[in-house]
């Protein structure tokens, strides 16, 4: 049974004081559903959202309710991450499209409400596939891994590496080439991820100033990323925290006050987004529509699906193979002159003559395809659905197989699986993009993995 099993086995007793994140999301889903109904009643249908889209989005909302109740009974990180994406980047987008029927993505090619309806249906089917794929396992729950005994934790090296990473990313310190290599070797995002794992895993062993230091790293990460024009810094941090928390505790529960803080952080995130947009292009000024465009992963999925025949020229296995060779395996020279698919998509919808690495360099733009768009364009709707099911099954299989004698290694490897699921699977920029990033990051990551597992936590404190 789903019911009786997990509750006792899944979480430490003190975690019961918190409120499960899925309960919070149930309220969010209720709010978004109300927003969709209100927007439809007030504004009526438009070119992109018709009455069928409205009914389908209600069905989508019911599906999310169903998944949220299921994940509340039996916590599962993959389903939770999927529902977070579905709520904020897909379901909410229907409401904003009803309110303001414009999307910078929809004007690339011909696009109609029928295309959006197909996309909503495919997303619903794909989410069912993910739910099915990750639940094809014995129901023995996920045990919390938090280390309760007192240990001595060292943070000198992580802080130093984080500082190096940030320093090498400054354009005043290093040239673009050096920055490129340094960002691979001294990747401050990985270091932050390790630091968050240390925080969650050894919370009881950390002294006060160590906890403050890690919080400062997180805050600095957000400020620095925003200052260099990244618009999703606070969101990246939030997803890292969800992944780490799930890996350590087996479920994501927060105190009621933290939820209030989360709600309060939404306006801050909006301000940071607009600030980062302004840093990127001061001449354009602050534009709220950009926020709607950026939040609208539904737009990107739907547009890729609607024009999949056009994009088929770059979203195919042969092109992926060539782009992986050129971008990941041939430093300093190219064999096929094939850019990564996410970079080449813009060359198609802007009708540039030919696609080459030079054209991409001159007009750099990367378009997120998302899991749904890519699966549909690469394999077609039916095979794409099956592919998502198999991939979800494999994610869960690998996640549950990541068990080391050292708890730190177990937690880090599980966190990385979740980060990959969120970053490269749900928010896919193409399989070739993932493979290239994997090739570049594997060695430095493994080095950090072993370095930190040996360095961070050692001697038992003798009392």
């Amino acid at each position: 049974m789903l019911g009786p099993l997990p509750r006792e086995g899944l979480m430490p007793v003190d975690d019961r004081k918190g409120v499960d994140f899925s309960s919070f999301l149930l309220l969010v889903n209720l709010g978004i559903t109300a927003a969709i109904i209100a927007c439809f009643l007030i504004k009526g249908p438009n070119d992109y959202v018709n009455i069928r889209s409205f009914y389908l989005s209600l069905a989508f909302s019911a599906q999310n309710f169903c998944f949220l109740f299921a994940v509340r009974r039996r916590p599962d990180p993959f389903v939770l991450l999927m529902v977070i994406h579905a709520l904020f980047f897909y379901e909410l987008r229907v409401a904003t499209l009803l309110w303001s029927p414009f999307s910078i993505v929809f004007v690339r090619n011909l696009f109609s409400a029928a295309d959006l309806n197909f996309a909503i249906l495919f997303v619903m089917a794909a989410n069912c596939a993910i739910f099915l794929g990750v639940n094809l396992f014995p129901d023995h729950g996920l045990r919390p891994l938090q280390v309760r005994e007192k240990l001595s934790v060292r943070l000198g090296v992580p802080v130093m590496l984080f500082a190096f990473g940030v320093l090498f990313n400054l354009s005043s310190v290093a040239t673009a080439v050096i920055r490129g290599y340094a960002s691979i070797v001294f990747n401050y995002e990985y270091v932050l991820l390790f630091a968050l794992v240390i925080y969650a895993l050894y919370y009881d062993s950390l002294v006060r100033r160590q906890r403050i230091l890690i919080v400062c790293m997180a805050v600095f990460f957000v400020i620095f990323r925003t200052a260099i024009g990244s618009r999703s810094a606070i969101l990246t941090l939030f997803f890292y925290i969800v992944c780490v928390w799930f890996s350590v505790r087996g479920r994501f529960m927060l105190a009621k006050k933290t939820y209030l803080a989360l709600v309060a952080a939404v306006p801050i995130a909006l301000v940071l987004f607009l600030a980062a947009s302004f840093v990127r292009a001061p001449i354009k000024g602050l534009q709220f529509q950009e926020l709607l465009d950026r939040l609208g992963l539904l737009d990107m999925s739907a547009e890729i699906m609607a024009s999949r025949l056009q994009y088929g020229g770059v979203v195919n296995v042969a092109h992926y193979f060539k782009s992986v060779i050129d971008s990941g395996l041939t430093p300093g020279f190219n064999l096929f002159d094939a850019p990564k698919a996410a970079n080449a998509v813009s060359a198609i919808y802007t009708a540039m003559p030919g696609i080459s690495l030079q054209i991409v360099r001159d007009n750099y733009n990367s378009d997120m395809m998302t899991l749904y768009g890519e699966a549909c364009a690469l394999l077609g709707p039916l095979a794409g659905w099956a592919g998502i099911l198999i991939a979800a099954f494999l994610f869960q299989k690998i996640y549950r197989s990541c068990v080391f004698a050292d708890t730190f290694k177990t937690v880090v490897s599980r966190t990385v699986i979740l980060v990959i699921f969120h970053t490269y699977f749900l928010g896919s920029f193409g399989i070739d993009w993932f493979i290239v990033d994997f090739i570049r990051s594997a060695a430095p990551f493994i080095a950090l993995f072993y370095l930190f597992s040996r360095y961070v936590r050692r001697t038992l404190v003798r009392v």
Partner: protein
Amino acid sequence: MAIINFFSIIWIRRKLFFSVFSAALIAGLFVSILTPKVYEVAMLAEVRSDTIGPFSTFVPWTIMQTLESGSLNSKIIAKAGIGVTGRLPKLRAKVLHNTQLVKLYTFVPASEIETAVNALLAAYEVIRDGFPAQSDAHSRKVSEMLQAANRLNESKKNIDLNMPGGRLPPGTETLSRELSDWVRGLSEMLSEYSELLQEPRTRYALGVNMVSPPEAETTPIGASPAQTFAAFVLLGFFAGCAVALWAEDRADIDKDGKGRS
């Protein structure tokens, strides 16, 4: 497998599941039968402003937002001759990307197509009459002012380049007075220019041309009865599952005798 447990809960709560599912099916049946077929009625207008620039999309966007705000509705109703019993359909507007073409459209059932056509024609006339009309003389004046301002700007650049720090070379003091007068003249002209730019007939003066008259699509748009019903089937299935899981959750909490967040 966890998925079997999921379905076993649905099975345990099958009465609840089927009652929600059936309710959705009945609702879907009613909605798909009772919802009339809807047709799109649309017209295309070109909106341009010579004073702002022939390729600016500012004016079409202004038109779109004004129409969608509903502030012209009373005028449109009066002009279209929609009586007290009649209903003005929700008028929408869309600027075609990177053009000055505005699509005015609405979705109505077959019985209201004529009203919609009249409403769109009325909207077109209200826009044409409500905004200041373009006048060749005024446009010419703005254009001349713009050219003069550009020339002055160029002159200022030259002065800045030739007289670093704003100091005149020795022996050219007599030029100073002339320059002062000239600069005064410049500032007066620039001030007149900026006032001119603020005038409504500069900012909002526009010319509207009807590219294609209001016309109804021959095939209905939106959901067919089958599609509507299918959407309700999905809605019923997931809502049924959600309610079954919720009920099981509540039962567990009652069994435990303590609340769970």
